[in-house]
């Protein structure tokens, strides 16, 4: 396994009126932050807030190319980004749902204390398969066929790439002490966007190649 320190490129926030970052996604232009009762679009180059959608936003956020998906209480909402309308909802699996990602026609849902990632059907919410991790799972993202997730236990937090079949940890980027990762998204290239939990920050970490 390849283990190294995470290379921090930028740090934005905390943003006015946003106490905690629970989920992060990227639509190609904006980074979206789920902050409890709103989804907020942030310009990832300047860190400027652009607009927001009022909705329950308690945990992970994902983008499928057209829609935003948002974990809210025990459901997953499908939201049209332009209007903010909720198009549909599916039940989330029972348990402590945290991070959310979109890939290969499925949603990938992290379960924090259960240390699991479920692949779920975006239409029905049914669990298609489950990957086990050995740490508390926060954010989840796919990039170039690699599955990455954030972990956060007490003061320790890292980003790790795992084998989607075996759950084996292939690579690990350790965050500086006290810097947690509550949501994770890649921009499809060089950058990871990380939510900073109660710090209310958005951090940009270099993705190693």
């Amino acid at each position, binding site marked *: 396994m390849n283990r190294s320190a995470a290379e921090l490129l930028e740090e934005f926030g905390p943003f006015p009126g946003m106490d*905690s970052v*629970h989920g992060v996604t990227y639509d190609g232009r904006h980074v979206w932050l789920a902050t*409890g*009762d709103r989804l907020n679009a942030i310009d990832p180059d300047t860190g400027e807030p652009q607009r927001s959608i009022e909705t*329950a936003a*308690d*945990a*992970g956020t994902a983008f499928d190319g057209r829609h935003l998906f948002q*974990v*809210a*209480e*025990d459901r997953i909402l499908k939201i049209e980004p332009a209007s903010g309308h909720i198009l549909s909802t599916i039940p*989330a699996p029972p348990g*402590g*749902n*945290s991070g959310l990602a979109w890939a290969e026609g499925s949603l990938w849902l992290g379960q*924090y*204390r259960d240390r699991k990632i479920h692949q779920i059907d975006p239409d029905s919410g049914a669990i298609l398969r489950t990957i086990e991790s050995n740490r508390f799972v*926060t954010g989840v993202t796919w990039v170039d066929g690699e599955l990455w997730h954030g972990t*956060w*236990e*007490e*003061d*320790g937090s890292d980003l790790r790439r795992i084998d989607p079949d075996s759950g084996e940890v292939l690579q690990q980027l350790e965050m500086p002490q*006290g810097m*947690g990762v*509550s949501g994770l998204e890649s921009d499809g290239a060089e950058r990871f966007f990380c939510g900073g*939990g*109660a710090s209310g920050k958005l951090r940009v970490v270099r993705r190693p190649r």
Partner: protein
Amino acid sequence: MDALITAAGRALSAGDPLGALNRVALRDDAPALALRGIAMAQLGDFTRARLLLQRASRAFGAREETARARCIVAEAEIALASRDLGWPTKRLDSARATLEAHGDLTNAAHARSLVARRLLLLGRLGQAEHALAQLEPSALPPALGAVHALTVAGIALRRLHTETARAALERAERSARLAGVPALLAEVESACLALNAPAARLVSHGQEHLLQLHEVEALLQSKALVIDACRHAVRDGDAVVSLATRPVLFALARLLGEAWPADVSRDALIARAFRTRFADDSHRIRLRVELGRLRAALAPLAGVRATPRGYLLEPGAASEVAVLARPIEGKHGEVLALLSDGEPWSSSALAMALGASQRNTQRALEALADAGKVQSFGRGRARRWIAPSVPGFTTTLLLPGPLPGA
């Protein structure tokens, strides 16, 4: 970081414990147990709340030190709310240190304010002020700011600094509105009632009327000689003679004060101070002895002169004499005063706060219970006392803060 926990936490901090329970009722993982514990505490079921928090504390992993520390702070708050004043404060101190070390300054501040509130309840005003001085009010979130201001007001009220108390209560109200927590607003409201309700009865020149606290404060700062029947002392400005341990002398002083500027007959003094209707020579001799003692005790403040029919109080520098009595007289007023917060107290906590022995406190409670002024429930160590005539108000339980990363 966990959707239901986040949502339940949001409901709790908005003062909606049932909404929080709805979201985590069926979960037995550590954060859910902790949230259920806090929700039960907000609903007033302290026993269940304490058990849930203890289970949560055990269920958090060895590495989750801050989460455990938050559970300990919540337990301490429940202990305070249930007037369990003997709670081990060392645990709270070490939890606060853990929270500070991990940067959870909000909950660390919450822990400090609990320490201050406990000291206030125990009447250790100087120590309570010292604990509050460690907190910077402007840095606190609104709910904690309201609690801070309420504690400042509580200390000021006990010190009879009514302007300070009023200003602090205005701050508390603003913060409570900002926080939007109804229980906090209710607490501010009942503290305002305490500030504006009659606090004492003034007897002067044979007339009496009720005084509010600020009028009591003004009276004590005036040039009057005050026979203080609330604290069994005689005061003239800063000079105080305590007669708390000499009830007969105080009874005589009070009778002389109530009659001033007239004198009081020997028979009246004997009847009321010695509680007997028949005055014989031995009573007259005893009266002379007791008045000699009173004269000696009051010497710095006032004189006592014999008149043809009895005795007369002669204030020294003071131009007025006033007797300050409790608004409603009766025995064990100090026990009732503590119970007037509407919370269930154990007799040991009352004894601690009164600085009295367990046995004396127990006796006072039994006497009050016979008179129908207090009620108890529970048995043995779990027995609690309440004063049913006082409308109860909630001690606000605050959310012990975001769970790790949430």
